[in-house]
């Protein structure tokens, strides 16, 4: 069974009496272990689709299933808890908590999950080691480069052992070298540990590495192909 199923999803924004159709008639299935890129021009609905898949926003019409749960059937703290245990997020601008060290940022998710302190520290060190930052556990975000911060964000997303990780333009703010390094890490995690990655991107380097590419235009899926 697909881990994500999107059925006839529309997303319409009513901004001061102007109707903006962000997504229209989206049907989609994503399997465990995919490395999928959602591409398209600005305003095509990539981020909106990721937000819907992550349960951060609700569709105007249609429904989304994650695992065996329909997201539209959950609200409030139940939905937040579901995200905590099932979905990892990597944002374009890293979004680490500035007052926490790299290790504590990774630990935070596990702390919210109720993982004991000793185990948290161990897993955080392990995750940071996986993204090549074993020596930066005690560094605050401000002391890390953009690429390093984004790798901490990936480690944070991994720490919750999610069903999949949603990455919104993960390389947009990174230089070529950092972007390449991040992509290698994500690919490695996908291949060796079967972590499912779904990311939105403009970056051709990312698109060329994706094994499935979904092209969005004007809120509709224009093409969906494996490569």
């Amino acid at each position: 069974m697909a881990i994500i199923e999107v059925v006839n999803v529309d997303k319409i924004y009513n901004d001061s009496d102007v109707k903006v159709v962000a997504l229209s008639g989206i049907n989609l299935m994503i399997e465990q272990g995919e490395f999928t890129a959602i591409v398209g021009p600005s305003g095509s609905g990539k981020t909106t689709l990721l937000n819907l898949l992550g349960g951060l926003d609700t569709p105007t019409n249609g429904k989304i299933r994650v695992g065996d749960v329909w997201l539209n059937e959950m609200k409030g703290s139940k939905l937040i808890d579901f995200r905590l245990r099932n979905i990892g997020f990597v944002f374009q601008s890293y979004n680490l908590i500035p007052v926490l060290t790299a290790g504590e940022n990774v630990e935070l998710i596990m702390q919210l999950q109720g993982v004991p302190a000793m185990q948290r520290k161990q897993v955080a060190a392990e995750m940071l080691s996986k993204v090549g930052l074993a020596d930066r556990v005690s560094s605050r975000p401000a002391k890390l480069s953009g690429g390093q911060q984004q790798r901490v964000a990936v480690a944070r997303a991994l720490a919750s052992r999610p069903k999949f990780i949603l990455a919104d333009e993960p390389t947009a703010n990174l230089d070529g070298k950092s972007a390449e390094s991040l992509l290698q890490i994500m690919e490695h995690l996908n291949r060796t540990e079967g972590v499912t990655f779904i990311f939105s991107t403009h970056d051709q380097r990312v698109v060329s590495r994706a094994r499935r590419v979904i092209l969005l235009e004007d809120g509709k899926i224009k093409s969906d192909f494996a490569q």
Partner: protein
Amino acid sequence: MSYLKMAQRNLWRNKRRTAITISSIFFAILLAIVMRSFQLGSYSLMIRNAIEQYYGHIRVQHPDYADDPSLENTFEYDERLLENISMIPNVKTVTSRLETFALASSGNITKGVLVLGIEPESEKRFSNPEHFLVRYRLTQDALDRLEKINALTAQTREVILAYLGESFTNSAKLVRIFEDEQVSADELYRVLDATKVKGRFLREADSGVVISSRLATYLNVSIGDSLIMLSQGYQGASAAGVFPILGIIRIPNPDLDSRMVYMPLALAQNFTYSPNRIAYFAINLYNTSDEMQKATTYSIQVRIADNELEVKTWQNLNRVLVQQIESDNQSGKAFLFLLYIVVFFGIYGTVIMMVHERMHEFGVLVAVGMNKLRLALTVVLEMLIMAFIGIALGYLVGLPVIHYYQIHPIRLTGEMAKMMMDMGFEPLMPMAPFGAYVVWQGVSILVMVMLACLYPIRKIIRFKVVDAIKR
């Protein structure tokens, strides 16, 4: 990583803002407790001066005496009744008095005075007027004597002129008025010698009087002089007498100090032709709390049930003082309210800035799985830490100040002192000891912080994650 630690680190994120918020809480607490302490201290002083040294906490008197305090409304002294009242556990001291008004004159100066017939020994236990016996007086006579022998420098003369008419109960108090001046020991000794007063307090069998210091100054009399007094005696008799002045006392209450004449009870009864009659039993209590005062009043009422007498508390007898204290208390509270309103908006402004600055971060935290209530709790924790630090600092600085000025009250001088005395109060500003009022200031700040926290709580509960994480 505990939430407390996270809250603490968040506070250090914007050190200046945190410092400003903590400072505003600190100054609010400091100002509030110091101001309140001065107010409550003044009330205690007023009550102590007026009540414990004259009125008594409770009086037992004729039912009509409160409205018409004349000799016609006095009653027959009953020793058994006095003993009965003395046996009530909360009763500290009881004394019987006869009180009347008279005209006192010396030379061609006359003044209306309050004549208080007292039992000297029991009065000593009650209000201890002997403690206020004047030992030194800066009179014109004393100044003339000093000038005659060229014993004064210009500086010392100026100080004496500034305090002319003042009385002192001991040498230390007199010496203190010269503490800012360069006065030699010899000169001080001469001043002490020239201003010394050799009075004493009353004894049961005395046929003289002790008068208050301002009255002595007004009538221009001293120890050994005689006072002529005219009054109306019991049942319309004319009362007149000449009484030698045996002592002068300085009553802390300026109103009483300007018109009090003490005489032994027997002499007062004789003077007013009211043998064995007294105006009231004045009673001081150990525990003066409202509850204990009520309980003691009730106990006395039970004991006097067979007599045609009634019990009056100092609040019944001193409506003016009670109202003065109450109105001042209310204006103090209103000032505190305004102060807290200002501080509240300061805190509220900080909260609004903090929330708007961190909305994106809140969005990320909720997106990755932090429960909104838990997030709100972290923010509340941050605010509470700031509040506790501000309150603790306020107490840390304020409490020693309170303690110091409780022991060393500020003595007002000049116009301010004159104004206070005109109003019948001693020109002193003592502070009240540590009490519930101190705790309440901290509680008020905490309540305000909690109220200010409603804003971030509401914002956090209502924000949309998608909107918050948009840059």
